[in-house]
């Protein structure tokens, strides 16, 4: 089975107060931040690896981004992908449509039985990309996939709906899936593995190489401004013996209209 996994580079946002908006007000200050593979995409990569281990075939990891995004392709190769392709285009705060168009153009040129995306990105979180690419390719798709089992020409999947309800489908291949977290446990990418992956060559191409001209890549949606959420009120710390603090807490909650 030939699988394409589309991945994105995002910053490590484990501590929100490390995030600052830059002077353009359309991006974040990147100095001092650490970057990684988007969480959802790591689950998609792991799903691809498990399918390959079971059924054989190839995995191609694809990303659209500037040169520093090579590091996530190296990580994907260290994880077990066979090939890494980067389309050199700066997609910071970009319209998902443009990224979808670029990805669709690359994927069309590659053998693919299954195309996997993470269900959404940790930074912009629009969750649009996978469905857009599937529509552009004219192949069936399912989003928010939480389990999958593949046969030669079809795949059985479940997707998660509200309140954990599951919906199951059997889909003919080729197909596209957007993968939800929790579907598997992505393997650890050792530094030794990354070092070995440094020896592998990455394929880098420009949108122009794909026949996409500048006027085809004009965003339909433009990011106006990024803002940090307003700070909430300070927490009120009630200290003292439980006999007294319990009463004070009840009073505070009552005053706040909680009960």
């Amino acid at each position, binding site marked *: 089975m030939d699988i394409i996994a589309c991945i994105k580079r995002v910053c490590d946002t484990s501590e929100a107060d490390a995030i600052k908006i830059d002077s353009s007000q359309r991006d974040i200050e990147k100095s001092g931040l650490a970057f990684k593979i988007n969480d959802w995409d790591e689950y998609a990569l792991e799903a691809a690896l498990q399918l390959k281990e079971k059924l054989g075939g190839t995995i191609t990891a694809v990303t659209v981004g500037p040169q520093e995004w090579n590091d996530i392709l190296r990580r994907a190769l260290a994880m077990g992908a066979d090939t890494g392709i980067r389309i050199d285009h700066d997609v910071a705060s970009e319209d998902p449509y443009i990224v979808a168009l670029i990805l669709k153009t690359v994927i069309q040129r590659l053998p693919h039985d299954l195309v996997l995306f993470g269900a959404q990105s940790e930074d912009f979180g629009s969750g649009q990309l996978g469905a857009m690419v599937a529509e552009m390719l004219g192949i069936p798709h399912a989003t928010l996939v939480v389990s999958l089992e593949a046969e030669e020409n079809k795949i059985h999947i479940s997707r998660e709906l509200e309140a954990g309800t599951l919906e199951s489908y059997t889909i003919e291949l080729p197909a596209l899936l957007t993968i939800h977290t929790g579907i598997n*446990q992505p393997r*650890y990418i050792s530094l030794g593995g990354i070092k070995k992956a440094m020896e592998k060559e990455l394929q880098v191409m420009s949108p122009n190489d794909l026949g996409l001209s500048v006027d085809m890549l004009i965003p339909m949606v433009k990011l106006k401004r990024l803002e940090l959420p307003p700070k909430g009120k300070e927490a009120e710390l009630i200290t003292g013996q439980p006999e007294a603090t319990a009463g004070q807490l009840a009073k505070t909650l009552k005053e706040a209209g909680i009960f």
Partner: protein
Amino acid sequence: MTLADYKYADTIHRCFRCGYCKFPVNWMDVNNCPAYARFRMETYSCGGRLWLTRAWLSGEIDWSDHLAEILYSCTACKNCEVKCPLRFNVDILNMIIAAKSEMVEAGRIPSSVKKFLENIQRQGNPYGHPRVKRGEWMEGTGIEPYQGHDFLYYVGCVGSYDTRAQEVARALGKVMQKAGVSFGVLGNDENCDGNEVNKLGEETLFEMLAEENVAQFKKLGIQKVVTLSPHSYNAMKNDYPMFNGDFNVMHYIQLLDGLLGDDRLDISGGYNATVTYHDPCFLGRWNNEYEAPRNVLKAIPGIQLIEMERNRDSTLCCGGGGGNFYIDLLGGSERSPARIRVREAHATGAGILAVACPNCLTMFEDAVKAEGLEEELAVRDVSEIVAEACGIK
């Protein structure tokens, strides 16, 4: 990986599971392997792990989450190595670490271990806190960035980020200031020492950390290092020489012992308490330093030092080694080693459980709360006790 390719293929079969590895040197308790004490199953003892490793590498059993958890519940406390009566005992812990390395290379490790290592890859600390916040602990202390001082004060990840351990990092800084020790710190430029990374089997990441730290120390002209944590001390003293890092490394307790010997610390303020001291594995069993902490505590007026039955090379690990202060495969039970240990400390009648390791400190602080002993037993780092005896607020 097959058994034939395994570094210890020729020796791992020599363990016939006599079971000595679970005992302390003084034989007083069968539960001196922290993981065995927690789970009470042979698989969690060193011998059990060696047999499982052999079965895994020879294809008799498959990798499983459970197998990974069994290996990673080893805290690398070295009790097994000290107690094993056979000649190949010098390698029994290395055999487990080598098996962990196989799991790391295959990417198949418990999710908490994965998180621990990824955080260090990205942010240089296991918590995943930003590198730019590493030096926040020292705000307002007047501690200087290292610039040609006699000592680099290497604080480590726990002392830099854990709020309770930060108090200890500041207390030690103030004690050294008061004694007129010339020292500086690296602040946000300090990186993980890698000791736990090494014991978790991530060899390449450890090599990178060691190489980067050695290069940084040399660039700054550092010759003498004093560490807050015995874990840092162990890596820098015993492993960094393999990366051309031949620094004069000491744990702070050795520095304080020397300062007291030279009469450079006025501890006349004293510390009125009955104290029992817990030997941290990476100071004791790993580096044979048992007397310096006792010398320091005995020198302080007002301290009555009493020993737990398991002390020195018979110490029971707090359960925090081998990354377990974060990956926590031994927690969640009254048989968790830290809880067993604080009960043991409490049974001596001591009011203070003294430690000389930020990992032990955080483990025991939690255990004292879980045991409901807050009113009777307090956990204090020796540096805090010395600070108080010096009249430092």
